[in-house]
């Protein structure tokens, strides 16, 4: 039965594990077999955990001994390579950290392990999460399981592709400007960027500290909720971690799915994310989805967020500025690569190491950030971008007075072809318009499937909620997922083309 285990939703697999019908070793082996069979073509993983079966055996033994385990205990999970993991290399997709094994676990990793989840390995990503296609990984791109000539999104293309290709039921991602939600959109999967501070960033290799947020990547809304419940909550190791009690997101998802109703929910369509630059087929699926929401009782209103027009510009100032500071730690002294020649000073060695260890996009953004923070430009660029951030927060505040949730397409187009935008950084940047505002404001957002485009590739819906109201995403998201699955005869990933499994 191991062939079927990879097709189950995470919560279904967890149910079989909890009841003892399936062992963690069986579940883990099934996913390792699937990885061995398809990952040669997909390249979702940078590293497969050779300790996974031992971890699974340990969980099985504890269960056999009658221990009360977490409801997800024994289920496998894939971990984005931006997260520090004891015993597994953590490279953030960069040569400068090739082979680096951290001396500690990220808090989110510690929490999934404590819940008994079994780490399958580390997933591919754009180098230091800079990118929207995974093509900026130093280890080669990940391919979209729906069409291997297309990008899986980015930066978390590896985690999204892993769950879309049934290589893992659960994965962890990180979202700085859409790196969870946009890959979800283009692979037909679900991903959530929590409220800023809702999930610990400790041990997440920092890109832009005021924007980064770790979150779940799965095939169903409930599965994301279950993982969010595990990883969320206050962490004293992260000074931006919020000390507040969060409701059960899994309970919200279950209630939302059971009701299948959006009665009385005020849903706002962001005018500025519903026109220019959105492909016709994405717009068509969005209109159809709005109709489904209306039929389910939602009260749909249009809201305006005029400052969003400046969000990409502000983001590409704030992010490089923060990244240029954060990436200063890769200095060839304490960890990672060192490139040195005879007679060189430590400064020469740093410069040679960073030249050899960073890819083109990372260098571009570090130089851009250094420029934006330079004396004479600081107020005009970085200072202005921070003001735009205030204006975007005000836009959201006003919008959420009229609506409980906001919706938009999660990405302007379906997955583009590998190589299509690689030589045009600006074209890649403007693609992030739908997802960036939530990071600038700190509010939570979800990407989930809303159908297929004219090219047969997945189209994603984005749901945004006010600060701290992640629960609303799960309640509404699960209801929308259930309504759409009724129309489609199953969730979208069940419609994905079969991948050829390599001979074992």
């Amino acid at each position: 039965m191991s062939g079927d285990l990879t097709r189950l939703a995470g919560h279904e697999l967890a149910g079989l594990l909890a009841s003892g019908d399936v062992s963690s070793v069986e579940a883990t082996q099934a996913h390792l077999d699937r990885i061995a069979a398809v990952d040669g073509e997909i390249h979702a993983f940078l590293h497969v955990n050779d300790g996974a079966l031992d971890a699974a055996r340990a969980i099985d033994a504890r269960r056999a001994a009658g221990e009360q385990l977490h409801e997800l205990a024994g289920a496998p999970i894939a971990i984005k390579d931006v997260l520090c993991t004891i015993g597994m290399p953590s490279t953030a997709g960069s040569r400068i950290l090739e082979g680096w094994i951290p001396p500690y676990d990220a808090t989110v990793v510690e929490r999934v392990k404590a819940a008994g989840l079994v780490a399958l390995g580390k997933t591919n990503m754009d180098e230091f999460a800079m990118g929207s296609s995974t093509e900026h990984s130093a280890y080669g791109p990940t391919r979209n399981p729906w069409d291997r000539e297309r990008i899986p999104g980015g930066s978390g293309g590896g985690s999204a592709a892993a769950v879309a290709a049934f290589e893992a039921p659960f994965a962890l991602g990180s979202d700085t400007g859409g790196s969870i939600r946009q890959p979800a959109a283009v692979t037909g999967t679900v991903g959530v960027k929590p409220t800023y501070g809702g999930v610990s960033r400790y041990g997440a290799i920092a890109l832009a500290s005021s924007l980064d947020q770790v979150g779940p990547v799965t095939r169903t809304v409930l599965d994301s909720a279950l993982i969010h419940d595990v990883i969320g909550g206050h962490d004293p190791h992260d000074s931006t971690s919020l000390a507040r009690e969060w409701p059960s997101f899994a309970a919200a998802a279950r209630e939302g799915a059971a009701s299948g109703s959006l009665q009385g929910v005020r849903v706002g369509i962001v005018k500025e994310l519903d026109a220019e630059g959105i492909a016709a087929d994405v717009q068509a699926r969005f209109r159809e989805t709005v109709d489904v929401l209306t039929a389910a009782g939602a009260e749909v209103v249009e809201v305006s967020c005029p400052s969003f027009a400046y969000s990409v510009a502000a983001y590409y100032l704030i992010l490089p500025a923060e990244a240029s500071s954060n990436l200063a730690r890769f200095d060839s002294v304490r960890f990672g690569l060192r490139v040195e020649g005879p007679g060189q000073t430590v400064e020469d060695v740093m410069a040679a190491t960073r030249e050899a260890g960073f890819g083109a996009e990372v260098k571009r953004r570090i130089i851009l950030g250094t420029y934006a923070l330079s004396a004479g430009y600081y107020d005009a660029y970085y200072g202005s971008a921070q003001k735009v951030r205030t204006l975007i927060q005000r836009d959201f505040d006003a919008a959420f007075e009229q609506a409980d949730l906001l919706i938009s397409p999660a990405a302007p187009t379906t997955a583009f072809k590998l190589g299509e935008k690689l030589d045009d950084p600006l074209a890649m940047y403007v693609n992030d318009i739908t997802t960036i505002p939530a990071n600038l404001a700190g509010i939570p957002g979800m990407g989930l499937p809303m159908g297929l485009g004219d090219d047969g590739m997945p189209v994603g819906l984005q749901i945004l909620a006010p600060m701290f109201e992640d629960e609303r995403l799960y309640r509404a998201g699960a209801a929308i997922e259930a309504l759409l699955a009724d129309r489609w005869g199953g969730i979208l990933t069940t419609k994905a083309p079969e991948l050829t499994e390599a001979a074992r």
Partner: protein
Amino acid sequence: MSEITREEVQHLAGLARIALTDDEVTSLTTELSAIVDAIATVREIAGDDVPATSHPVPLTNVLRADVVGETLVHEQTFAGAPSHDGERFRVSAILGEEQ
């Protein structure tokens, strides 16, 4: 059109400690000019009356109890270091001959 010169890119690369090749300086000079044009639009709406936001959820005085926390031991700290002597990170000369 923002004019970013080769010399500026070389200066920035020096500040950022990246030994760019000539080809990289050439392509970055072109790309940065275009990117800076695009992002400079933030100045259009950033009025004097708008306060800046640095963090989405501002927190202040986040402190922990003043007790010994969890720390790494030497062995863990040096495990990933390119060079060390067991107690210190080892680097090449701090000062060049002309300094």
